């Protein structure tokens, strides 16, 4: 059976994912994706009646589980300096990034 993730589709996904890949790495990843899809196809075997809703969570959070909303107040963490210190490049409290190109839309 032919691969679901063709080289063209793979290139499209890599671009969406914002990744730059070496050729060997790309071969391995595309092969694994296709193998995983064979396992995922098992899902098609299951009869899922139309009235079965999707579950975003396993546990239903009703009124007794759901926490009360916090008051709408601003709280300062006091951690701005520690957080900014983790950035690869900053300048006077701003993150510095390479040029943002404004090519044709």
């Amino acid at each position, binding site marked *: 059976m032919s691969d679901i*993730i063709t080289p063209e*589709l*793979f290139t499209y*996904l*890599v671009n*969406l*994912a*914002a*990744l*730059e*890949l070496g050729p060997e*790495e790309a071969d*391995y*990843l595309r092969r*694994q*994706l296709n*193998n*995983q899809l*064979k*396992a*995922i*196809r*098992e*899902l*098609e075997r*299951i009869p*899922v009646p139309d009235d*079965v*809703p*999707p*579950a*975003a*969570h*396993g*546990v239903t*959070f009703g009124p*007794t*589980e*759901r*926490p*009360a909303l*916090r008051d709408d107040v601003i709280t300062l*963490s006091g*951690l701005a300096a*520690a*957080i900014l*210190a*983790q*950035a*690869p*490049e900053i300048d006077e409290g701003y*993150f510095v*990034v*390479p*040029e*943002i*190109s404004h090519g044709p839309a």
Partner: protein
Amino acid sequence: MALPDLPAHELVAKLKARQVSAVDIVEATLRRIDAVDGDRPTPGGRAAPDDRRIHAYLSLQPERALERARAIDAQLARGEDPGPLAGVPLSVKDIFCVAGTPSTAGSRMLANFVAPYTATPVERLEQAGAIVIGKTNLDEYAYGSSNESSAFQPSTRNPWDPARVPGGSSGGSAASVAAGMAALSLGTDTAGSIRQPAAFCGVVGVKPTYGRVSRYGLIAFGSSLDCPGPLARTARDAALALAAMSGADPRDATAAAVPVPAFDRALTGDVKGLRLGLSPDYVRIRYPDPGTGEIRDAEIDPQVKGALLAAAQRLAAAGAEIVDDVPMPNTSFGIPAYFVISRVEAASNLHRFDGVKYGYRTPAAVDDLPAMYRRSRGEAFGLEPKLRILMGMYVSGAQYAKQYYQRALRVRTLIRRDFDAIFDPAGPYRLDALLTPTTPTTAFPLGAVYGDSVLMQYADLLAVNANHAGLPAVSFPGGLDAQGLPIGLQLFGRDWDEARLLRIADAYEALTAAEPWRQARPTALSGAVQAG
């Protein structure tokens, strides 16, 4: 027994009786680490061929730990109560932020990240008196079941046989507890990542109900599946740790407003009248053949099955009621659904790593911002995160989402219904818990599965449905196989009913206390037990 080998609750009792100091406990633990753990793993590091060290810790915080220990000793000297976990050495999976410590998620992306704040469960364990000794290795971003995918090598070894994996992704956590390098560990479980390594390393692991423990400060993987929880050497220790870390948190809207019981008070040693189910769907597995991809049916390892049946028999003799042939028809769909749901959530969570706000940025000269994103992510993510992002992108794409993502979420409902049916108090089964193996096999050799991303995922087949369904599950030791490797057994329970599962695991410890396998020690400790 040496201090590092005592259970947490005994350490607390000794400390409060002033038989030892918290500084004594921390120093003994650091000596044990020195004796058995070997060099700290690094990005691109490798093990010597004859290396039998465990490599559980990525970083140690001895100064911080000793300072906390001195503070606890001072509290005791003043006649104050330093808490239910006073002086207990704790390891933390390196996917939790602990202020001022490297918090790497096992990824090159975060190799230099120092957390500016502390995760809620860590903060609460420290408030209860536990002492963070260090951060433990894991599969990169918790994506794996063997620890081998960590960017920090050598990856953690199994203390019972250093040629084998400790399981994953909380492999460093499980190994540290098994080898006396911590009495407790804080891990996370997204498809079995606490329970599977607990089983492989012969310790207790708890995946709490979703929402029982706050995820604030946890580097997210699958946000609808992730559960922080404890690993410990006894059910009582796990109960104390779970009580300390649980409860609502204004910083996590999914931390439920459900009261937290004193879990340890439920440990009565009594299982009389409890209805425990055995399911045929948990002693056979359906998985794709690694060569052809064709779906195969197989029995689990007969020794694991033997340990399960022996446990059922012993619990029955103690008064539990065993209910056979409990149907769990959707069990085998757990992994296919997980392949979809977890990848969509992982891809979404990994988009924040862009080389701008924190983490790795490529040193190469790049033309523009998108090139910087691609290059930084390409250089810093390992194979497994890349694979998960790509799959997540594919199955959530507008043209494929109905076929994959939406369908997987509906299959999740069917999986939940399996559990609802067996726990229904008005139904035919009315179970208190479902008793199963945690894993189809005992720990596998390093390199045996790694690289085959499909087969590796199937290592979680018997564990994953607790995450889909959200309900609690506990893995506890159930014996050793012929090679001396630990076998893990598992209990699934109703939402918020961790106490009952811990009660059964604790009772089983007492029922098997005289068994030879209970006295066995991890081989990595031979010759090292004198240290500490």
